[in-house]
């Protein structure tokens, strides 16, 4: 409460700016979640560094060029991009308090996310079936860790997405629900940014060499 005393002591303070008090909760929450996302990105950076270091350690096994199917990756990318767009539409619908459009946009986002996971799961299963599982070489261990970690994040995001749909359905657009929607949108868009790094560094550079 020292801030109030400060306002009283310096009305229209020396900085030439009125004291506007603590930031609204939406800003504090969003900022805190932004910090979390940045720390998550740093965790991904360690996985990327590991992958880059282990890229050549194939132990005589298959390299990325032998394994990656760029057409699948293009479809996955399209799904994630589209889901990011519909997630943005859901944010707009939430700001406009339109429950119907919010649910529709979130359902479409969920469908794209599930499509992404299905393709990725398929890819992993076929790699393991071809004897190129995570135990084959250090390169493949790093590949499965990095791409799998992104996939886990998408799975968690879908669970969160469904939770938000249910909460809006039962509780409506309360301020705390709106804050959670803000954080979810940040999370989902950040996953898309990480996927840009994945498809560039892992798939495109891996196939080009």
């Amino acid at each position, binding site marked *: 409460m020292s801030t109030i005393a400060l306002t009283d002591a310096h009305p229209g303070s020396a900085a030439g700016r009125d004291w506007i008090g603590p930031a609204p909760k939406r*800003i504090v929450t969003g*900022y805190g*979640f932004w910090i979390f996302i940045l720390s998550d990105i*740093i965790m991904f950076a360690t996985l990327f560094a590991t992958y880059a*270091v282990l890229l050549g350690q194939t132990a005589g096994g298959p390299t990325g060029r032998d394994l990656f199917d760029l057409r699948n990756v293009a479809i996955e990318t399209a799904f994630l*991009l589209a889901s990011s767009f519909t997630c943005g539409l859901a944010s*707009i619908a939430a700001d406009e308090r339109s429950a119907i459009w919010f649910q529709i946009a979130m359902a479409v986002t969920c469908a794209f996310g599930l499509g992404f996971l299905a393709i990725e799961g398929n890819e992993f299963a076929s790699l393991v079936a071809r004897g190129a599982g995570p135990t084959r070489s250090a390169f493949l261990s790093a590949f499965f860790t990095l791409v799998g970690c992104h996939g886990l994040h998408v799975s968690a995001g879908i669970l969160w997405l469904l939770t938000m749909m249910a909460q809006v359905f039962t509780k409506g657009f309360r301020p705390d629900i709106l804050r959670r929607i803000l*954080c979810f949108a940040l999370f989902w868009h*950040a996953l898309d940014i990480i996927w840009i790094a994945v498809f560039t560094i892992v798939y*495109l550079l891996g196939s080009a060499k």
Partner: protein
Amino acid sequence: MSNAHNEADVAPGDEQLDHGSVAQRITGYLTGLGLAILLTATSFFVAGTNLVWEPSIPVALVVLAIAQMGAHLVFFLHITTGPDNTNNVLALAFGVLIVILLMGGSLWIMANLNHNMMPMDQLMQMQR
């Protein structure tokens, strides 16, 4: 300076406090989507083509990826250079610094070690 509320911060992910109409906001997301599709398509084209000088391909891919991340940050996450976004941008800058140190440092050290280390078969023979 007269109206302090114009100077207030904006939460990351939020657009400006007095954001425009729904149509304007959808146009913003459409712009971002269009840019992202353009950059992604270029990336996939560059990776698979013979029309580009080969050693330039990795550089081109990295540049395209960074450009696309920028497009996502601006149009989807609404991280801008405005005064209401200073905190968000500073946090992002710190994150980027750590990421660069982490990845650059790891690659540098490991490449250096790799370069200075004896080939594995010779090492094994010495241990015999």
